């Protein structure tokens, strides 16, 4: 017979209230982390969608990719050694559309690579978001520093950098506009260890993302909220069970007197915590999926199954810790105390 379950059944209201709070807190956590992830996609999907590997920029650039210039010899050498290595450059800038309206974009150019679109001179490939804003394939776009003009070749999904849509342009054109002979960055895919290249500083994908100024600020504040919520849910569990336990100290003493194992009392709390958490999480995961569907189109919301699973596990672990800490008082209960205290 499961007395953990019996207690929930008899005290539905109490457990319902706990469950609702856990549901709300976890739902909020899911939504905010979906938002964090969505924003990070919106901010830097160009980089986020690359496989994990290493980024290199000049040491002298002091972690600012804009100031980095990679020596052509080093670049050629690395690209030869590692067939998937790619050199690329990014510049924030403006394009004028057919009605001469300025559009903020991130110009990107690269050496031959499967992860970067290759375009001929006079061509341009744009992020899909610009199509939604009314641009079409075949449109002619201009740039102040470029004598000739670009023809839109196609649109690609989800390529953003620093919250701006990416515009892939030809390397020669890029050099002409920005008067730069050298590429800013090198990227080598693969988990193998960093190569020590003289004069270059290496970054993991995550480290490189954090060099984008807006990126780390955004992510840090959102992730902080997520962690606060998780800690709050753990404390809720702790406080709730602590108060329930205080009321039941007498009962626990009697149960110990008649021979109930302390470990069984803990199991009882864990069972209740698991039941409430799993039920609340199921509901909040469901609701967050629903939110995924009904969230406004242009709201950067992107919650992956992986994140959902990770957060769910964290909730379970935190709940477990909260309950266990608050249960430590049970260990100290003496059977006699309770008997002498009289009616419970």
């Amino acid at each position, binding site marked *: 017979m499961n007395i953990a379950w019996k207690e929930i059944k*008899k005290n539905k209201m109490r457990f319902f209230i706990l469950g609702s709070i856990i549901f709300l807190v976890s739902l909020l956590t899911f939504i905010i982390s979906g938002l964090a992830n969505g924003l990070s996609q919106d901010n830097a999907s160009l980089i986020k969608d690359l496989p994990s590997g290493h980024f290199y920029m000049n040491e002298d650039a002091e972690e600012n990719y804009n100031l980095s210039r990679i020596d052509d010899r080093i670049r050629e050498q690395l690209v030869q050694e590692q067939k998937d290595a790619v050199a690329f450059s990014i510049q924030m800038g403006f394009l004028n559309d057919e009605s001469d309206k300025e559009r903020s974009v991130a110009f990107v150019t690269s050496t031959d690579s499967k992860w970067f679109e290759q375009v001929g001179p006079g061509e341009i490939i744009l992020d899909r978001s610009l199509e939604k804003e009314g641009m079409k394939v075949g449109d002619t776009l201009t740039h102040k520093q470029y004598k000739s003009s670009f023809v839109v070749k196609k649109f690609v999904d989800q390529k953003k950098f620093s919250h701006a849509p990416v515009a892939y342009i030809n390397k020669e054109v890029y050099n002409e506009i920005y008067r730069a002979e050298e590429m800013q960055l090198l990227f080598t895919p693969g988990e193998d260890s960093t190569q020590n290249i003289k004069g270059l500083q290496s970054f993991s994908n995550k480290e490189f993302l954090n060099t984008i100024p807006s990126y780390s600020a955004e992510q840090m504040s959102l992730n902080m909220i997520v962690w606060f919520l998780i800690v709050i849910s753990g404390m809720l569990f702790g406080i709730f069970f602590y108060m329930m336990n205080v009321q039941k100290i007498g009962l626990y003493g009697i149960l110990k007197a008649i*021979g109930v194992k302390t470990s069984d009392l803990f199991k009882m709390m864990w069972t209740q915590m698991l039941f409430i958490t799993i039920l609340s999480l199921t509901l909040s995961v469901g609701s967050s999926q629903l939110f995924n569907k009904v969230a406004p189109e242009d709201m950067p919301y992107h919650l992956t199954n992986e994140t959902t699973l990770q957060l769910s596990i964290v909730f379970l672990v935190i709940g477990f810790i909260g309950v266990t800490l608050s249960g430590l008082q049970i260990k100290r209960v003496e059977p006699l105390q309770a008997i002498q205290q*009289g009616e419970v």
Partner: protein
Amino acid sequence: MDIFTIDELRKTFTNGEMKEEILKGISLTLKEGEITALVGPSGSGKSTLLTIAAGLQPASDGKILFNDNNITSMTAEQVRDIRAKKFGFVFQFAHLVPFLTVREQLSFMLDVSEVKMKNEKREQEIDYILERVGLSERKHAYPSSLSGGEKQRVAIARAVIHKPRVLFADEPTASLDSKKSKEIMSLIQDLTKTLNLTTLMVTHDEEMLSYVDHVVKMSDGLVV
């Protein structure tokens, strides 16, 4: 072989610098199928003796032999195991689990004592005991809807459902009126005989002594 023997039992409580000997060498043998009642003035050490005998607190010196095993030298876990399987408890108040029905209180006690039996048999046992304590009608009631006397009868049913060898009862009638007290005492007497229990109880009610087999008078930590 006597099933339960208390031998030269002593208990000293230390309150800061103050040491007070509450039990000053008590020897006592309990007989199977019989009720032994501890009587004596308040503060004479009756409850202390009973709870030490029941393995609810440690002795300072002396032995408690249950089936020739000395409880005072066992580990806490061993004592718990004996309490769960071989002892039954009734106190002044019923101390029932508030969120379990009468039936569930008994079923839970069977779980605690790790009695293994088929569901059907388990229900039979529960029904049998409930009939013995006269609560068949209240099988699915929660404690909050029971009267004081009914609660105490559930407590007694819980104390014997797992067929313990020894029943400990500390003033089981102290919170009841005279009529109900007599009902409870005759129930304890009845169960002690039919289940062949060894019963140790504390009472300060002279009227209840007609239901017991032996009376042990205590005064100031000694049997007199």
